[in-house]
């Protein structure tokens, strides 16, 4: 396609005026950038609540038989902590938050394909969260974020949990479809598949996963709700059902969901690294296509969560092999990121620190993931603190560190002001050290015999030489978990402070080359006055900007 043809295509676009009035602007908004901020604020509130529940869990575990919480309350606390962190924090922030904030800008679009659906999708989210937390009034769920029946059927609050998670699932499905259509149909002229920024690749694959997998979660939840309220025996072995049925359907969603929670982070890291290393991302195609490979295989590994559920051995075998196979595309990504650092001109900014912190922790989580894939080894490790440690390395060391990399990176685009770098670095180091100190020893706790979801751990260690060691380790982990919680205060202070004291960012404070930096910060309602024309991929630092109708002045010297 020649440039003149591209321009003809682009000229069809026209600009709508921004809405007037507070409600249409900030509440029932159709603007992807405002909706992104709505997601960030809502998830931020749930992050605080779920984080406080985590601290409560660690307070309880300060003693081997702490009478602070009853076993019941403790079970409610960790169940709502896990559910909220997965469905009310990580998934909405990474898809609804970052997807909405960056993706339309990065493909040079004026908004997503279906702005009304985008608004609707967001407004399913606050009621969903409120329902999940409201369950505390009616006997909150107690069986963990996985809510295995039959034990989950014994608390009436599970009905609230089902309804809440169902709503967030619908929201996730709609957003997935919306993003799929947006990325496939609305890329700026000239942006071929291999010129797409890697975050857009990651968002596309995530959108497919959300759209396809979440329906299974909805089915499982509907079954649980109907059984709980109307006593239809889906999971009742005495009437032809099976509790294992839930496990299959739940994990058929929840394993792909693991990748919904990490693929956008892969995308964020793939943007942050080249920006601050100032050289092309290493192995663009390998990183892009390995996301697709991971997504495809993610639908065929669910039963690796169920190796102790009495599956026949010939069923376990393919799930083990395919789970190990996921390690290969994931490894390709990690090695490519490390190679990107080679011979760069690296500027140590907060987003880069978070991305670099992400790499070894996610690698570690990946290695323990392979350890959990091997059936015989998993038989010992399953449902212990080894799993708790593994999943926090992947979801906190991985997802949450990547999430903060993205937040520091796109904060100036969202608000027009930079976050303070010194506070940002303090936040990083506090988080990095306290996270590792808290969660690394949990691997050993699990291997030595501490099972997950216990309010007391004196019984299984009573009379062994391990009781003191296990208690001390738990006290140590709790201490660092409190530091980890406190590190978030540094971020909160930084965020509030940036509103008045933050350096004015300008359009392109980091000297990046993707399209979201080719417009003002925050961008105008219509994003781009003229739809950009894309001539090359975005990562060739040192070359002129790859856009035909965008001023080369935007390739300015980075101010931070």
């Amino acid at each position, binding site marked *: 396609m020649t440039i003149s043809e591209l321009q003809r295509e682009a000229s069809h676009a026209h600009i709508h005026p921004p809405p007037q009035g507070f409600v249409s602007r900030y509440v029932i908004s159709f603007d992807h950038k405002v909706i992104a901020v709505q997601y960030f604020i809502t998830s931020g509130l749930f992050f605080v609540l779920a984080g406080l529940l985590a601290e409560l869990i660690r307070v309880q575990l300060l003693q081997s038989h702490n009478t602070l919480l*009853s076993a019941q309350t403790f079970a409610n606390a960790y169940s709502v902590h896990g559910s909220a962190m997965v469905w009310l924090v990580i998934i909405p922030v990474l898809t609804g938050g970052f997807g909405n904030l960056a993706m339309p800008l990065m493909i040079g679009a004026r908004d997503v394909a279906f702005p009304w659906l985008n608004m609707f999708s967001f407004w399913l989210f606050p009621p969903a969260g409120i329902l999940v937390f409201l369950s505390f009034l009616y006997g909150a769920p107690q069986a963990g974020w996985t809510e295995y029946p039959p034990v989950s059927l014994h608390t009436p609050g599970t009905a609230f949990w089902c309804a809440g998670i169902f709503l967030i699932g619908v929201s996730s499905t709609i957003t997935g479809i919306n993003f799929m259509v947006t990325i496939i149909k609305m890329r700026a002229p000239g942006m071929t598949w291999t010129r797409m920024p890697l975050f857009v690749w990651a968002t596309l694959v995530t959108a497919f996963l959300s759209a396809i997998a979440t329906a299974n979660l909805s089915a499982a939840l509907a079954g649980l709700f109907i059984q709980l309220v109307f006593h239809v025996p889906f999971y009742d072995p*005495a009437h032809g059902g099976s509790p294992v049925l839930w496990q299959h359907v739940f994990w058929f969603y929840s394993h792909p969901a693991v990748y919904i929670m990490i693929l956008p982070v892969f995308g964020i890291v793939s943007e942050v690294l080249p920006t601050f290393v100032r050289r092309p991302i290493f192995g663009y195609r390998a990183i892009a296509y390995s996301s697709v490979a991971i997504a495809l295989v993610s639908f065929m590994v669910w039963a690796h969560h169920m190796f102790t559920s009495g599956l026949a*051995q010939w069923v376990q075998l393919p799930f083990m092999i395919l789970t190990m196979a996921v390690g290969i595309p994931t490894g390709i990504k990690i090695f490519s990121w490390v190679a990107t650092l080679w011979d760069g001109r690296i500027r140590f900014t907060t987003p880069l620190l978070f991305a670099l912190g992400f790499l070894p922790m996610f690698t570690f989580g990946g290695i323990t993931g392979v350890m959990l894939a091997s059936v*015989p080894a998993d038989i010992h490790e399953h449902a212990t603190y080894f799993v708790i440690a593994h999943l926090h390395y992947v979801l906190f060391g991985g997802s949450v560190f990547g999430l903060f990399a993205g937040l520091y990176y796109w904060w100036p685009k969202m608000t027009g002001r930079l976050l303070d770098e010194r506070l940002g670095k303090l936040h990083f180091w506090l988080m990095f050290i306290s996270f590792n100190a808290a969660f690394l020893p949990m691997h050993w706790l699990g291997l030595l015999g501490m*099972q997950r979801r216990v309010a007391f751990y004196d019984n299984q260690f009573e009379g062994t030489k391990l009781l003191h060691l296990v208690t001390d380790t738990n006290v140590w982990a709790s201490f660092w978990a409190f530091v980890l919680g406190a590190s978030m205060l540094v971020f909160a202070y930084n965020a509030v402070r940036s509103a008045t004291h933050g350096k004015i960012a300008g359009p392109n404070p980091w000297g990046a080359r993707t399209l979201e930096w080719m417009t003002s910060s925050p961008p105008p309602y219509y994003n781009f006055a003229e739809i950009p024309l894309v001539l090359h991929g975005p990562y060739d630092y040192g070359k002129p900007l790859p856009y035909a109708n965008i001023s080369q002045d935007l390739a300015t010297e980075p101010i931070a």
Partner: protein
Amino acid sequence: MNETRKQPLLDSTFWSVTVLLTVISGLLMWGVVIFPIEDWLPEASSVAAHIDFLFRFMAFFGVPILVYVSGYIIYFAWRYHIRKGDSRLAVGSPIHDHPGLEAAWTIVPSIIMLILGVLSYIVMPKYYLASASSVATIEGIGHTFYFEFRYPGLAQSVDNDLHLPVNKEVTIYLTSDEVDIRNAVIHSFWVPEFRVKQDMIPGMIVPIHITPVKEGTFRIICTEFCGVGHSDMVGRVVVQSQADFDTWFKTEQHMQTQGATKGVTISITGGNATAGGQLFAAKCTTCHSTGAFDERKVGPGLGNLFHDTNHPKLVTGKPANPDDVADIIEHGFSGDLGTMPNMQVNQLTDKDIANLIAYLESLHK
């Protein structure tokens, strides 16, 4: 802006760092090989050593991956970060990819995964497949919140106390006690020292095959959340020589027949309500509240046990009088409302039961 640097792609510092990382990896891998797992967690079943070998294998290859990834991140970050006076517009190497390198880091992990898959597959049948050499078949049943074991030849089951002869393969059929969905829960049978874990699922009976190879007393831990008493659901497995096992078995048989002929009854007179109240708080509140009948945790609320006109009869169908309540506490009960363990499982003495009855009588609402 477009500066080009004339130097080899990988300089001598890079190779020095690589050697250093290799040495660190080597030391850590040596550590993985010699780490005395046995000192921390005995390998008490025939399969345990195989599983620990797999674990070591994975740690052995995991260590260099982590060391090289972390090491190169730190080295590259130090080596290539811009110094004071460098332009912020400086750019790094324009290299986009390197097919040989990418092929290597695709193929090498694939080979490791393949070997790991084959090794895992070899270990898998060692405790799953039935074997002709099983000397005994035991039934293991998960209750809220204890493990019940039934032996062929014993009229009554033993609770939370699994005795096994050393070096003999046994088959244990695992399940959960209830199939009524209102009470049913999944438990899991885990003996860390055996490296064996299997869920006990209502409506499913799953056989596992274990050959204990070390004598000793180990823990049986429930690893599937089963309700408020989940943390307390810990039993023990005693692995003993065939002679000791036979002695235990005979004693158990003898005690059971003795108990049956004598028809032991407990005197419930002279109970102390205060002592009973303390005991209730420690032992019973996991499953019972002191509220009305409907304030159930697992079993019914017991606050109005002896004076409830809506529920004049006990779960056993007998009238609510102290002797019949004592009968339930002594022998346990299993019914629509759940399963209550007997006095041995709850570790109650005769005097304790008298105290509990006195306390329950004092609770008239």
